[in-house]
């Protein structure tokens, strides 16, 4: 696959498309971010506390495993199509489908993070007279932050990266351009694809930075970037 001149021209056209349609691309990017943000918000509000609480009480490992299977095995296209049949075309069905996708890694990681905190540390805290709530707040959560944050990052990247597929179900965003080659031609499709790629990379890098900044110094381990969890998009 040598980059011959025709191929080069295609990408030059794509770059030109990006230059000539910044307004359109910005609008579509904002649409996509709004959809992704709403989905991530829902997933954070439901899956994160659920995982933390289940981990704290060492209950519900089946739920955590099921969530990891949902996160890994459910094709986003299937999920989006299935929710479309129930909730109709548009913003809501995509938001819910993306929230479900993002909930997988969030739930698994927050559960794992809290559940796997060293039992000795928890018992020492209890021995010092801490209540269950205090143990959770000042021992388990700080120690679980690296894993929880990895979950948030994986969920965010999953959602942002899957959002273009939502275009097929009326979700809007940059995907509108990608699935509409008839109107935007190859240059538009490629230009939008490049934007989608940059957007995911930015979200990934931005959250990795936040993660490094937020991780308590004592629990910083080798690499934050490592172990890409499954992301199906």
């Amino acid at each position, binding site marked *: 696959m040598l980059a011959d001149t025709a191929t080069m021209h295609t990408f030059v056209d794509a770059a030109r498309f990006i230059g000539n349609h910044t307004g359109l691309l910005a609008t579509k990017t904002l649409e996509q971010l709004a959809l992704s943000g709403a989905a991530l918000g829902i997933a954070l509000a439901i899956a994160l506390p659920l995982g933390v609480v289940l981990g704290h009480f060492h209950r519900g490992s089946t739920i955590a495993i099921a969530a990891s299977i949902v996160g890994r095995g459910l094709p986003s*296209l299937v999920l989006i199509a*299935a929710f479309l*049949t129930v909730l109709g075309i548009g913003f809501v069905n995509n938001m819910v489908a993306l929230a479900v996708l993002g909930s997988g890694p969030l739930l698994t990681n927050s559960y794992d993070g809290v559940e796997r905190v060293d039992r000795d540390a928890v018992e020492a805290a209890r021995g010092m007279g801490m209540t269950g709530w205090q143990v959770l707040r000042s021992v388990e959560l700080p120690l679980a932050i690296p894993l929880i944050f990895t979950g948030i990052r994986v969920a965010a990247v999953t959602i*942002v990266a899957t959002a273009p597929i939502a275009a097929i179900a009326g979700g809007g965003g940059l995907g509108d351009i990608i699935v509409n080659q008839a109107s935007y031609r190859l240059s538009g499709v*490629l230009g939008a*694809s490049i934007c989608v790629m940059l957007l995911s990379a930015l979200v990934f890098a931005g959250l990795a930075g936040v993660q490094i900044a937020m991780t308590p110094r004592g629990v910083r381990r080798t690499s934050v970037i490592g172990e*890409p969890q499954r992301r*199906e*998009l």
Partner: protein
Amino acid sequence: MRRAGGPTIIPNFGHGSSCVTGDHAFCWDWVRGHWGDTLGPALVQHIELTAIAVSIGFVIAFLLGLATHRVSRIEQPVGIVSALLYTIPSIALFQLLVPFTGLTWTTVEIALVSYTLVILFPNIVQGLESAPDDVIEAARGMGLTRLQVLTRVELPLAVPAIIGGLRIAVVSTVAIGTIAAFLLPTGLGYPIFLALKEPTPFKTEIYSAGALAVALAIGCDGLLVVLRRVLVPWASKGLA
């Protein structure tokens, strides 16, 4: 292979049961009637897509893993590159490959192989590193050459991690494979794609193709669990 029904402009009488034309939640008769021309072929294509991608990805990841095992300096850079590669949305990667390889199977496979590579590589490296130093020294002390240490000690100990990686790779590839339908009329994504293009999305087609994709993922995962039990019975702890 299209169904009749939905608010089409030209009424297409005589095709489809009342269930199909009435757009009920799930119509077994449609599934039975279109297994041969729609669902069955899509399933076979999907299995082919996945099998090719995972095999090629495995071979490349394995060779890269062995190289990394020898020259551990390249692990960090390769790891970062693969983590970044993994953030590329599949729909974008598929499209960006089109100018190079066109609307072909090659395009789809290059993208799928890249993703499997990213998943398999760290697992293989981690597996190869998992042999305790004591064990390796003992093997060396017994007079094994480096190659023998690799084949008789390190590789067998790496099998659980490698199969763990394969499980994730296969399940992800089945899932990403549905996105291939954005490029080519192939795989289980295609019936879903078509069903979504109908004036009213055709539920039975979405549900049946979706269920097949999920079942394929779970089935492959199960096969790999069985494989691990057979290869390394000592490493089996439950289903996880």
